[in-house]
């Protein structure tokens, strides 16, 4: 039982921010300043020694970003957060904070392509290996854990298979081995799922998507639940032993529940530098103010569209956990009672060529590489992001030649249905 004393919708508007004491500004001001003047030489020394609160340099912290960080941390029920340049930066910051060369990750194999690239190809170059497992099999996560494993990772709703991760079960097996769980909650946002409440330890978001909600910024957020005992685990010298890079600071000893997020900021932002611009933080804050309203509408439209597509000629299958035909329908009802997100995939008859014709027949859906916009989006992986793959390689990646991914926006659902019908007609015509 951790519920804060205000409801979610109220916190989405207010958490972390008070009217400006000097100007009375009600909105969060954009502090577009690289640096902040020290009150005195002694205060400066105090800031660098972590004995005073305040801002030094906007790579490390910024007052606008701090409001966003506290807001997402409260919504996710964490002790703190760090705002970074993108969702990928959030993922990298978490990995870099937890481990180094010789360490290992166990991850769901149903992941965003960018994350898959990072884990499969780039991190091994730095000595960090990943074992990918079936997201529906907690025992597979357990079996893949090695002596050098430092993280168990997955997405609330997988991509593109829309698998719902059993976060409580995965967390149980990870914790039994003394390993933290990080969840990518980009598709769900804290409105639909709060992974820490379900047993996870860390959460990351691409705030580019539903959190900001309008497709206008790139940003990432990393949240520390403050629930994992880094010292007791015995696997995390970066957190539970003196750090030479910060005057022998032992983060677990001095920061207690906030050890991870403190080191992520003090080392990760300082040394890797993937900070968020304050104007970006402002835009994401504006998005979060209406998160509840938008997500409710996203869910309403997504369900209508999923059910519509399920009954259409030329649609071979639809993948969305709101459909009884989805393997995780019951789990989604339990873990995601407010909805399983507005991203869905479907298989169009006619393969790669039909997919191209479908996309080109759409007028309202925008053909682009993103999800989580207020506007509806569409992409055909076989002809875009995965166009170099042959049919066999696509199957190995869990993508079929006729798979279409939709991100359902906030338009009138009737207009979206008309548009999809037009696309399906185009796909079918070309096939004759």
């Amino acid at each position, binding site marked *: 039982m951790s519920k804060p*004393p205000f409801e979610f919708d109220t916190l989405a508007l207010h958490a972390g921010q008070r009217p400006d004491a000097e100007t009375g500004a009600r909105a969060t001001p954009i502090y577009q300043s690289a640096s902040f003047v020290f009150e005195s030489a002694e205060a400066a020394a105090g800031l660098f020694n972590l004995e005073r609160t305040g801002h030094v340099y906007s790579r490390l912290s910024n007052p606008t970003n701090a409001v966003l960080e506290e807001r997402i941390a409260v919504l996710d029920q964490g002790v703190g957060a760090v705002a970074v340049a993108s969702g990928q930066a959030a993922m990298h910051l978490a990995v870099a904070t937890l481990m180094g060369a010789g360490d290992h990750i166990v991850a769901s194999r149903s992941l965003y392509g960018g994350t898959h690239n990072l884990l499969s190809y780039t991190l091994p170059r730095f000595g960090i290996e990943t074992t990918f497992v079936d997201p529906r099999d907690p025992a597979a996560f357990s079996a893949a854990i090695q002596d050098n494993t430092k993280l168990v990772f997955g997405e609330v709703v997988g991509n593109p298979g829309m698998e719902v991760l059993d976060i409580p079960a995965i967390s149980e097996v990870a914790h039994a081995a003394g390993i933290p769980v990080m969840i990518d909650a980009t598709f769900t946002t804290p409105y639909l799922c709060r992974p820490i409440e379900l047993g996870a330890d860390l959460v990351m978001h691409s705030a580019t998507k539903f959190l900001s909600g309008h497709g206008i910024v790139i940003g990432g957020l990393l949240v520390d639940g403050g629930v994992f005992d880094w010292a007791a685990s015995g696997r995390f010298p970066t957190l539970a032993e003196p750090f030479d890079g910060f005057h022998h600071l032992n983060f677990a000893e001095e920061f207690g529940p906030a050890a991870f997020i403190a080191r992520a900021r003090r080392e990760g932002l300082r040394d890797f530098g993937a900070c968020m611009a304050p104007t970006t933080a402002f835009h994401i804050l504006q998005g979060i103010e209406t998160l509840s309203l938008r997500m409710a509408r996203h869910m309403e439209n997504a369900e209508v569209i999923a059910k519509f597509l399920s009954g259409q000629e030329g649609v071979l299958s639809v993948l969305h956990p709101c459909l009884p035909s989805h393997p995780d329908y019951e789990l989604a009802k339990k873990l995601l009672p407010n909805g399983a997100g507005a991203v869905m995939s479907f298989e169009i008859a006619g393969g790669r060529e039909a997919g191209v014709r479908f996309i080109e027949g759409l007028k309202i859906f925008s053909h682009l590489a993103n999800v989580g916009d207020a506007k509806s989006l569409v992409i055909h992986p076989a002809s875009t992001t995965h166009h170099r793959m042959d049919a066999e390689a696509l199957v190995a990646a869990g993508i079929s030649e006729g798979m279409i991914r939709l991100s359902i926006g906030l338009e009138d659902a009737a207009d979206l249905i008309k548009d999809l019908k037009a696309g399906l007609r185009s796909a079918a015509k070309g096939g004759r």
Partner: protein
Amino acid sequence: MKTQLQGATAFYGVGNGEHAPEQPSVVFIHGSGMDHTVWLMPARHFARHGYNVVALDLPGHGDSEGPALTTIEAMSDWVSALLNQLGIGEAAIVGHSMGSLVALDFAARYPSHARSLALLGTSTPMPVSDVLLDAAKNDDRAAMVMANTWSHSAPGLMGGHKSPGMTLYFGGLRLLQRTPEGVYFADLGACNAFEAGPLRAEAVACPALVVLGNEDKMTGPKQSRAVASSIRGAQVVELDCGHAMLSEQSNAVLAALKTIV
């Protein structure tokens, strides 16, 4: 730092400094269900300025082994034993909430060891409501949620942590939730049962400071002022915050402590 005391491991933070008993010492005593991490900032400040910092974990808290002590007097006796073991003769004694009662009791009963006294978020008596005590007895996790909510000012409940990216509400709650089962109830019971406070206040002979939060719902401003008025020559600093002043007003708390330590 760890030492063996009365057959158990006792932990104390040194603010990233060294244990140096020949230097002026400052002892920090945390509140119910808390540990040494609440003193992160003042501990680091005084260590940087050459003080010998002892930010202790009472038995059963943080990294000190249990069992938890059940009376304020037993806690101040334990503090005395720890200081003896560490070779510390005299120290500035700083306590928050339950820790303020331990500090008060210690300063009165071990006057030669108290150079000065700072009481943060204090009240004596420190009655604990039946609702909270019952909750702590039956389900201390629920009691922690209650106490954490009451520990913050109205604005503080909505956030506004001065330390970038940190949350006030969950920062406090997660620390409480680390406390082993039974310890929080023992702490609250010790606060509730401590009746000697007024006598101890009158016996304090060293310089003293009371720091109060004007929105403190756990130990109200009036109660804090009453403690100050019972201690000869005590100064009062009033801050714009609730009981969780170490997170709500960390810089102002440090500024106040610099006047007495």
